[in-house]
C-alpha cells in the first residue's frame, strides 16, 4: 500500500515544499504503532533478535548471540549505553538477507517502504501509555500471586476489575485485547492510589518473611505509579515542553524502569519499555515534544471511518472506500484548525470556576441522578470485566510460573 505513494514521497523529499514563496526541505518522521513502523522500515518486528528499530540491542541475553549481546547490549540492560543504528540503516536496501548473518542485517530483512532516519521514528506515545498502564495493573496481580498464591491472585484480579469500575469508572473495551484504552489509562493513573490501597489490603494479612517481601514490592509498586504518572503527562503532551520538564522526564524514565527492574526481578523489559527508556528522552530532547508527533491522529481515523463509512455506500467496499477518501480530501479544507480560526474565542474561565465548592453541588458525581442502564448492558459490562480479570490473571500466572521455573533451574 505504501508502495503506491513512494514516488510521491520521494518527490516530496527531492523537491521540498513551497512555504511563503520559499522552498524548504522536508523532514520525514515515521509515525504509527510499533508493528506498522517495523513493517514500513522492513524490520522483522518485536520478536526479532534485535527488536528495537532504533538501536542494535538484542532482546535478551542468549548463548546464540552472546557476541552481539556483549557488543551491543540487550534490552534488559537498563543502564545503557545503547548503540544506535546507522543513519543509512534503512536507506540502503537489503537485497538478499539469506546469506547474511544477524550482525549484518540487524533484523532488517526486507526492503524498506520508507527510509527514515533511525532518530526520526516516533516512540509511539499512545501505545506506550496503553502497554505500560496494562503492565502496571498486571504487576499487582503478579505480586499477589507470588505472595498469596493463585487463588488469591485470581480473586484480586476480579476485585481490581470491580474497583476500577466502581471508583475509577473505566471499562475494558471488547477490542484491543480487552484492555483499557484511551482516556481510561489516564483515569487509572489519576486513581492509582486506589489500586495501591487495594494491593496493600490484599497483602496486609501476610506475616513473617512474606510480609517483608510484600512490603518491598508494595513500596516499589507505589513508586512506579508515582513516576509513571509524571512520565505519562509529558509523554502525551502535544506541546513543546520546557527544558526542565525534559530533564525531569529523562530522570523519571530512568528511575521508573530501573526501579522496576531492580525491585521486581521477574520483570522483562519489553520493546515498549526499552523505547521509553532509551529513545523517548532523546526524541523529546531533539524535537521538544513526543505527543505532538504521536500516532493519536492516525488512530482516530479508525473511529472516523467506522462512524462515517455508512454515509458513503458503494457497490463494493472498495467503491465505498473511494467515496470516503474523496470526501475526506474535500473535508480537509475545513479542518478544525480552519474552523477554529474564525470561531468565536471564549475567554478562559476563572481559576477553579468549574469546581464544586459544596458537598451538595450537583456537579459532583455522587449528587447526579443515576442514569438508568438496562440489564443487558450491565451484564455485558460485567462479563467484559470478568474476561479482563481472567486474562490478566492468566498472563500473570504464566509470568510467575516462568519466573519460578527459572529460579528452580538456577537453584539446581
Amino acid at each position: 500500500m505504501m508502495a503506491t505513494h513512494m514516488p510521491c514521497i520521494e518527490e516530496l523529499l527531492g523537491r521540498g515544499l513551497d512555504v511563503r514563496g520559499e522552498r524548504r526541505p522536508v523532514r520525514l518522521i515515521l509515525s504509527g504503532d510499533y508493528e506498522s513502523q517495523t513493517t514500513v522500515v522492513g524490520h522483522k518486528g518485536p520478536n526479532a533478535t534485535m527488536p528495537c528499530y532504533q538501536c542494535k540491542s538484542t532482546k535478551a541475553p542468549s548463548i546464540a548471540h552472546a557476541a552481539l549481546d556483549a557488543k551491543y547490549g540487550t534490552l534488559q540492560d537498563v543502564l545503557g549505553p545503547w548503540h544506535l543504528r546507522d543513519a543509512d540503516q534503512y536507506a540502503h536496501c537489503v537485497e538478499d538477507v539469506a546469506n547474511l548473518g544477524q550482525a549484518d542485517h540487524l533484523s532488517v530483512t526486507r526492503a524498506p517502504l520508507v527510509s527514515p532516519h533511525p532518530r526520526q521514528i516516533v516512540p509511539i506515545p499512545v501505545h506506550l501509555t496503553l502497554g505500560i498502564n496494562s503492565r502496571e495493573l498486571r504487576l499487582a496481580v503478579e505480586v499477589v500471586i507470588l505472595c498469596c498464591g493463585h487463588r488469591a491472585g485470581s480473586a484480586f484480579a476480579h476485585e481490581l476489575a470491580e474497583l476500577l469500575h466502581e471508583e475509577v469508572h473505566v471499562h475494558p473495551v471488547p477490542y484491543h485485547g480487552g484492555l483499557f484504552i484511551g482516556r481510561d489509562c489516564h483515569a487509572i493513573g489519576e486513581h492509582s492510589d486506589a489500586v495501591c490501597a487495594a494491593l496493600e489490603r490484599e497483602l496486609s494479612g501476610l506475616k513473617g518473611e512474606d510480609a517483608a517481601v510484600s512490603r518491598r514490592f508494595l513500596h516499589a509498586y507505589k513508586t512506579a505509579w508515582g513516576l509513571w504518572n509524571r512520565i505519562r503527562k509529558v509523554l502525551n503532551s502535544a506541546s513543546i515542553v520546557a527544558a526542565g520538564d525534559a530533564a525531569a522526564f529523562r530522570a523519571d524514565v530512568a528511575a521508573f524502569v530501573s526501579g522496576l527492574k531492580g525491585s521486581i526481578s521477574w520483570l522483562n523489559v519489553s520493546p515498549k519499555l526499552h523505547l521509553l527508556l532509551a529513545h523517548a528522552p532523546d526524541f523529546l530532547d531533539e524535537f521538544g515534544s513526543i505527543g505532538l508527533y504521536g500516532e493519536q491522529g492516525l488512530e482516530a481515523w479508525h473511529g472516523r471511518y467506522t462512524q462515517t463509512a455508512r454515509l458513503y455506500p458503494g457497490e463494493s467496499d472498495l467503491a465505498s472506500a473511494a467515496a470516503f477518501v474523496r470526501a475526506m480530501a474535500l473535508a480537509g479544507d475545513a479542518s478544525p484548525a480552519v474552523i477554529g480560526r474564525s470561531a468565536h474565542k471564549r475567554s478562559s474561565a476563572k481559576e477553579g470556576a468549574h469546581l464544586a465548592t459544596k458537598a451538595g453541588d450537583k456537579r459532583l458525581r455522587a449528587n447526579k441522578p443515576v442514569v438508568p442502564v438496562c440489564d443487558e448492558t450491565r451484564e455485558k459490562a460485567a462479563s467484559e470485566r470478568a474476561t479482563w480479570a481472567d486474562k490478566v490473571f492468566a498472563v500473570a500466572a504464566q509470568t510467575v510460573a516462568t519466573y519460578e521455573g527459572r529460579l528452580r533451574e538456577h537453584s539446581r
Partner: protein
Amino acid sequence: MANWRAEAIQSPHGSARWRVACLPESACRRCRCDSCYLRRKRAVKRSASDDPAPIAPALEFSPDFPPYASKWARLPLLVSTPHPAAVPPCPPCSLSALTAPAVRSSVIRSSVAECPSCASARLDADTARRAEREALAAAAEAVARVRHLEAQIHAKSMLDSPTPNIEVGGMPPLVSPASQANANSRCQDFLDYLVSGGVGHAQDEPILGRIASVILLSSDQDEICLQHKNGRRRVYVRKVSPQKVAVKKSQQNKRRAAARQQLVSAGATKWGADEMSGIPGSPVEVGGLSVRQQVGLVFELGISWSTFSKLRHALGGSKSGLASRHVLRAAKRELASSPAKEVIVTSTGAHLANLALAVQERVTALCDAGQFVERFVYGPDHEPLRAEDATVPNDFDPGAWGGRPPPTVPDVHITVGLDKGGDPGSEKSVVTIINQERPNNSATLSLQLCARATRTTIRRCQP
C-alpha cells in the same frame, strides 16, 4: 341592532333611549368588506339559480342588507351589470347568439363580432361612464375644498374657545363652537343614555361601546370637560405618551446580536445593521468561511446537502452568509476535479493520486491562514538550533538530505504513518504536517484504505 332600535323607538318621546334610537343612520360601510361582498354574491347566485332569467346581480339585495351606498352603486347599471331593461335587446346576430346570452359580460362581447345596434349601445354606455367619472372627480374635488375650509374654520374657532363643556345628566350648559353644536348635542344625548344605564341588553353593549368610541375619539378636541349631576367636574385630556429620542437596543435586538455573533463564529457574515434602530442591513464579510471551506465543512460534518440547506434556511437563508446548495455543489465538482484531490482506485484500495500536491496545497492553506507554525530541532540545552527567521541556502538540494536536513535549515516536519484496524477493517496511511498548532486534530491529509473484500465476496457468493 335593528331589533334594539325597533324596541327602543317605542320608548316615550324625548327619553334618552328614544333619542339614541333616533340617531341618524350612517351609510353602512360593511357592504364593501369581503364578507358582505361574498354574502351578496352568494345571494345573487342563489337567486340566479332559482330564476334562470337574467337578473342584474347588484340590484337583488337581500332584505336585511343595508342600502348600498357606495359610489359604485351609482354607476349606470349597464356598465358593470347589464340588465335586460337597460340594455336594448340585441337583434339576432350570428356569433353573439351562438356564444352567449346578451346579459353576459362585455369580455365575451369584445371577443366576438358585434352587430351595429350592440356597438352603438356599448358606445353610449362608455360615454355615460366617462361622464359619470368626470362628475365624480369634480364632486370629490369640491368635497375636498369644503373640508379644507371647514378645517380652517374649526382651527380658528378652537383658538377662540379651545374646550367645550359638556354637562352630563343635567341641563345642557353646552358651550361649544357653532360649527360643532349639532355634533355635540348628539354626543350629549348619547352620553346621557350611557350614564343613565339605558343599555340593558348585553348583546348591544359591544356595539354601543364601539359607537361611544367613534363619537368620543372622532373629536378633534384635546380636552373634554364633563360635569356630573353631583357637581363634580372631570376633564379628560388627550395625552400622547412621550417617546424617547434615542432608545436603547431592545431585548429582541440583543438576542439578534448574540445570534449574529454565533453566525459569524459559524463562518457566516456580520450584519451591517444600525446599532440604534436595529434595522437590519446588508451582510458584510468579516472573514467568514469561503465557499471552498463551506464545501469542506459539509464533508467534515458528514451532512447531506438537504440537511445543509435546511440549516441555512434556519439561519436566515441568503442572509446567513452561507452559500446555497447549488453553489456549493458546483464548487464541490470543481474542487473534486483538482489534481490535489484526485483519487485513484487500485486493487489494493483508494489512494490520493498525488500526495505531494495534496501536501503542498495544505501547506499553502496553512500559510494563507497564518497558521503555519515553525518547528525546530533542539540542541542539548533545549534551545532551537536555528533562528526563527533563518532562510534556506540558495543552492540547496533537498533530495540530498534524504528527509533529515541539517538542524540549522528551515524545514517542514512531516510524519508518515501506517495503521491497520477499524471496523470495517482497513489499513490507513496518513501524512501529517506538524507545522501547525494541533496536528493530530487537524492535519491528517491523506487517507488510503485497503478495504477488505470479505464482505463483498460473501455477498457475491450468496445464492
